[in-house]
């Protein structure tokens, strides 16, 4: 599925809820269903800076696509990263670099987009795009 199609799907799913509490509960569930990351990968160099909670993000290349795995010690943060993993994992680097993130607003998580917000959603997206850029550069050289 393309990034855009996944984003549409998420917007659809979140549109079923009419208040923030249901949206958060759904996000928390998404966090709980995030595939467990190998404990060995939860090292300090995989931590994303700028979050009040800890977020580990790992990436690897498989068949020209980036596979992201992640974890967090906070449940809401884990839900947020689960949403991002669903959107950006198993995609080609260029597609990740080209993708916009307007869907975050549309699924009602806009308040997490502020760059000064302590959960670091913006840092997570940035880190995913950085990995994409790194793999892209590697492939082209």
């Amino acid at each position, binding site marked *: 599925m393309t990034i855009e199609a996944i984003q549409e799907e998420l917007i659809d799913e979140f549109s079923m809820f009419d208040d*923030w*509490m249901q949206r958060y509960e759904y996000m928390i569930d998404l966090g709980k269903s995030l595939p467990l990351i190998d404990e060995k990968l939860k090292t300090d160099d995989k931590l994303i800076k700028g979050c009040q909670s*800890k977020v580990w993000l790992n990436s690897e290349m498989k068949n020209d696509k980036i596979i992201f795995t992640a974890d967090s010690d*906070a449940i809401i943060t884990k839900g947020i990263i689960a949403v991002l993993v669903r959107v950006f994992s198993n995609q080609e680097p260029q597609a990740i670099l080209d993708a916009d993130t307007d869907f975050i607003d549309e699924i009602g998580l806009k308040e997490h987009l502020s760059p000064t917000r302590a959960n670091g959603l913006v840092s997570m997206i940035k880190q995913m795009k950085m990995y994409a850029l790194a793999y892209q550069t590697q492939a082209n050289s």
Partner: protein
Amino acid sequence: MSFDIHNIRKDFPILSRKVNGYPLVYLDNAATSQKPQQVIDAIVDYYSNYNANIHRGVHSLSQEATDAYEAARHKIQNHFNAKTACEIIFTAGTTQGINLVANGFASLLNKGDEIIVSALEHHSNIVPWQMLCEKTGAVLRVIPMNEEGTLLMDEYYNLLSDKTKLVFVNHISNALGTINPIEEIIEKAHSVGAAVLIDGAQSCSHIKPNLQELNVDFYVTSAHKMCGPTGVGILYMKEEWGNKLPPYQGGGEMIAEVSFEKTTYAGLPHKFEAGTPNICGGIAFGVAIDYLNAIGFDAIEAHENELLTYATNKLLEIEGLRIYGTGQKTSVISFNIEDLHPYDIGTIVDKLGIAVRTGHHCAQPIMEFYKIPGTVRASFAFYNTLEEVDALVEAVKKAKMMLS
């Protein structure tokens, strides 16, 4: 004046706003206090009617501004019971006051001298002392604490020696709310000839200190913690110290005479007040102090203690909730629920209009002590109500339900 919470709340315009569709419940008073209309009006009045630079102009406006600024200094002197107004130095806040003292001690310390701080400090306030130690070869010693979040005074006595030159302790810890026994700390430090700097940032809104009676050498605080504006605070220093310490920054206001060969410094307090100060802030600080005194610190303390007891009992009814800091303390409750992340709890209660602080509260050593990533901290002020405590407790219960 009797304590009428409903009238008091009317003085604070921000308390009637909504956040995320719910009435704001502001429980982050340890970070900064809200401002009453009286203080807001004073700021508007200053810029609308008599804004001018001070101590410089012969013109009437400058005179009016100077008079108001110096009158504020006198109010602050009276409030904290300093001996003279010149012992009150206006600063940008607690942090700057601490740095001013640390900087001043650079020329007074020798290699091997010792500085004592407590394990309960705001971590940014440990940095100026670490810098001072690097510069001078002095050694930093730390008073440890116990599980209750109370300082171990026996350990403190053991640390004291004729090498001790300075002791730095906060009156109240911002992370846990612990009230430190500063009378005892000051007295013992003096018995070995050490000076004492007390950080009053957290205590000034709860306790009115009597600086002469405390016999403390230095005391710092910030106006914004006591209903005044941000960016202004005071450093109290005993006059004898004011003469001993070198100036902190060079600039206008702090000089008596300047030539290219030599500059003679102005006397206290101007020696330490280089450049145009936060004039409006100083004046508004005075108004904030008047405001708090009109309510009365006894009434403030009684109400805050009622909130603390009520909130502690209610929160402890929630299964798995643990409070950090259980000794002698003010109206601050730092807590966690089982292994839920404080950030998660803070996020959910914020959605319900409740402002609490989450994280390490600039006190990472304390969090390391308890081996936790942080806490949720609710800190109450005199304008908070029992109903707001109920709202907090309900919100925390809801958060627990959603997150577990």
